[in-house]
């Protein structure tokens, strides 16, 4: 027998948050993947909405590219508001 394809499961919890990756499962098609995701990942009210995507369709950055991709952000501390000290007497800013 051939393995059913692998799907990644994303669930939106109650509080208006974005869908979040929770795990994966095998299913023959998308409809079955959603049904199985409901049984495997939402037995205790964990969510109000499910997304599934074929694992094969997800492209990820390579661990080796970590520095090239993310290191440039390290020396741009001025992107954070705390970079600019404000005098105590200046309010509401």
């Amino acid at each position: 027998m051939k393995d059913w394809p692998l799907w990644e499961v994303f669930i939106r919890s109650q509080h208006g948050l974005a869908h979040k990756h929770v795990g994966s499962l095998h299913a023959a098609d998308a409809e079955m993947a959603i049904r199985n995701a409901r049984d495997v990942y939402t037995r205790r009210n964990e969510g109000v909405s499910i997304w599934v995507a074929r694992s094969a369709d997800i492209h990820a950055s390579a661990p080796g590219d970590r520095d090239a991709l993310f290191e440039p952000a390290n020396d741009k501390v001025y992107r954070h508001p705390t970079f600019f000290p404000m005098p105590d007497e200046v309010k509401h800013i």
Partner: protein
Amino acid sequence: MYAQMVDTGVAKVADVAEMSPEERAFQARVDDDIRIEPKDWMPEAYRRTLIRQIQQHAHSEIVGMLPEGNWITRAPSLARKAILMAKVQDEAGHGLYLYCAAETLGVSRDQMIEDLHAGKVKYSSIFNYPTLTWADVGAIGWLVDGAAIMNQIPLCRCSYGPYARAMIRICKEESFHQRQGFDIMMKLCDGTPEQKSMAQAALDRWWWPSLMMFGPPDTASVHSAQSAKWKIKRLSNDELRQRFVDQTVPQADYLGLRVPDDALVWNAERGHYDFGEIDWDEFHAVLRGHGPCNRDRMRMRVKAWEDGAWVRDAALAHAEKRQARAKAA
């Protein structure tokens, strides 16, 4: 534990001086408590050890459904039946989280199931004992799931990300399992003398096998030392076993049940309970396949897999047909 005596495939714990630059960088990440993720470089022995351990763990969850499933149709009330079904369904879920975690290491689901059925991979010794009465269902929840929690909480900090994340989900759900078991024991101990003696008999049956779940003392084991270095294993078998005894004996006292161990005594100096010798011959015999239910459990697993083959094939054929139609349209 749910994964007992996991072979790391190494003859001795690697010394920093013998490591390749990649291995050194890997060990440094582990030492810094940075999680290892599926696409990161990892030593082959680390990958194989994790596959072995997660797979054993997953199989244990799945085989563990059998002794309890045995009682779904005979649970003493509708409420108990619904609760037991929810618990058994959780075990299926736990098996699935863990199979998926193992798959991120490059082993297929089918391969894992074939290896279990061929007897190449083990599951926990505990599931080879029979559930003779309803009290055994209570004892399993209280003791077996209690021992499982003891082992799984440190695994939430395991160095491999997908395994650690699966363990966090599992631990959240496992607590319900232990409490429903203790609740069954409380009801029986509050009941008629016959019901209380059923509870005692179940404790007598499950106490020693539960202590065996943690595996033999591993102080001298190279595999345990290597797993500890990789932060796959964070506490020794004996440490976990001692914690389990210390937390469980007062619970047995509360129930008014006697732990079946004449050597059990509080040691004020150590601040722990001393307890008797475990029969390791029995443990090794069960692992080798000679427990009371080994053959039965495997027969049931293989039958379920084979009987379900046409459903799996049909679902896939249906999905492929619909896909082909959608393409043609």
